[in-house]
């Protein structure tokens, strides 16, 4: 079992797996990879179980040393990675010999790049998951983003591990989208038709202060329905809430579990991974689909994954 030495952590790098569902009654949200599709694909490339823990890098990658060597794959956005100065490709497993340094830079495409290593990152699980929950300082590596000098353990590779590749078709189909498909939110009918039309016809810009808790949007102000405050209720991943002021917020992986703002729409599950690739200042818009379509798109995504 080897280790990863963090020579440079990058802007914001955390240990993530597919999160911890099931602790909503304690106020604990699932957390997990912001782009779960990329993490799952990266794990497949190195022969891990899809849910093994990897490193999630944000906008600017780090520099990592592998003193005992490792089998690595990078998935998600292109952070211009080099291994001892030689460019390495995304979506392909490669070997780092003992002592080689993997260096990543600023993103050339979306917000997040995943570093998966055969055997996965071994951290103490919190409520069954390796995911870091930044706000509460729980899970992952000491409940925080990586720092220079951190040393992470690599887990034992499973005996049956088998590297799998990704087809060009799957990569194309699973590309992050800028037109996000949504279903109605629980309070959609609180918003007058004119407000809804505005919401669907407008382009929104991702605000700088977006993070894993929520993606804040700038653009057309959605008139907030009058008629009193609503009672706080459980909120779904991808819910688009409209607080006072009318600037929509998409609740993301480290979401609050309950909230008291009306929700105009909800991003469909098949587009969650696209949310994880949104960068500040990216422009997006929303497209309404019906429940049947949302279900079919999720099923197609999983079938594409399974068949590849």
């Amino acid at each position, binding site marked *: 079992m080897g280790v990863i030495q963090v020579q440079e952590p990058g802007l914001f790098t955390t240990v993530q797996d597919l999160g911890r*569902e*099931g*602790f*909503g*009654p*304690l*106020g*604990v949200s*699932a957390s997990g990879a912001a782009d779960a599709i990329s993490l799952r694909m990266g794990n497949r490339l190195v022969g891990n179980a899809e849910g093994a823990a990897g490193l999630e890098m944000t906008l600017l990658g780090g520099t990592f040393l592998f003193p005992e060597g490792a089998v690595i794959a990078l998935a998600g956005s292109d952070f211009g990675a080099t291994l001892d100065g030689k460019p390495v490709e995304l979506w392909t497993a490669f070997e780092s010999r003992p002592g080689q340094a993997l260096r990543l830079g600023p993103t050339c495409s979306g917000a997040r790049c995943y570093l998966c290593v055969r055997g996965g990152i071994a951290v103490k699980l*919190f409520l069954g998951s390796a995911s870091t*929950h930044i*706000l*509460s*300082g*729980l899970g992952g590596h000491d409940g925080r983003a990586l720092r220079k000098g951190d040393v992470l353990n690599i887990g034992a590779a499973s005996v049956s591990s088998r590297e799998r590749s990704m087809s060009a078709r799957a990569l194309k189909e699973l590309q992050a989208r800028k037109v996000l498909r949504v*279903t*109605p*939110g*629980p309070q959609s009918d609180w918003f007058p038709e004119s407000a809804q039309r505005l919401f669907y016809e407008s382009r929104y810009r991702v605000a700088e202060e977006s993070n894993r808790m929520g993606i804040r949007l700038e653009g057309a102000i959605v008139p907030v329905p009058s008629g009193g*405050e609503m*009672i*706080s*209720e*459980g*909120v*779904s*991943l*991808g*819910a688009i809430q409209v607080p006072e002021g009318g600037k929509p917020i998409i609740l993301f992986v480290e979401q*609050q*579990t*309950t*909230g008291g703002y009306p*929700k105009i729409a*909800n991003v*469909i*599950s098949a587009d969650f991974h696209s949310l994880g690739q949104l960068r500040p200042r990216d422009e997006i818009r929303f497209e309404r689909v019906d*429940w049947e379509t*949302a*279900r079919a798109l*999720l*099923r197609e995504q*999983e079938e594409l994954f399974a068949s590849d």
Partner: protein
Amino acid sequence: MVTSAGEGARFQSASDQSLLVSFGQEITLQAHQQVVKLLRLLESEPVAGIRNLHPAYCSLLVKFDGLGLRHEEVEAILRRYLGRLEEVDLPEPRQVEIPVCYGGEFGPDLAAVCTMHGMTPAQAIELHASAEYLVYFLGFVPGFAYLGELSEALVTPRLAVPRRRVPAGSVGIAGNQTGVYPFATPGGWRLLGRTPMAMFRTDRDELTLLSIGDRVRFTPISAERFAALEKEWA
């Protein structure tokens, strides 16, 4: 997709993988008990494909695996559970006492709240500390308990501009609710004081100090006592 039936529950598709079950649009003890009973029943007899439950004042958000279940199927299952709520015996509520040092740097909004209601700090503290509160649910962040009802004389709107960082242990009020921030988070509740007690910790079996259905009282303590307890419990 909105339907209402059995036990006065209303079902609403919240996302492609979640269903919201509501018991009316008012915060009542009866609605709260229905939420807790449904939650406990689903916890003791879990349904394959239901992944998570988010209780709130008068609703329960049920998250499910959209590859295996459809909204209609989840609704049908939940209706069967709702038909059995009377079987669920809720335990005697636990009584929990939380020491609070009011005012000063720990309660930066106490003075403004007093001004708004035309009362002295001592009166406000007395009102806040003399009531027994019900834990309606835990939500927002890990271990944050929504407590009610606040004395009517203390009902205060939340801050127009939320603070970027509220220190852990801060005791706040908003509307007719009160609560304790378990972690340093952004927050818009008006802060009356702070407790040295941990609301969430991983070194004990029960991660959260409070559970849904508990009864809570706040006890005023001095700054000296706060410092001593903080040291003792560190």
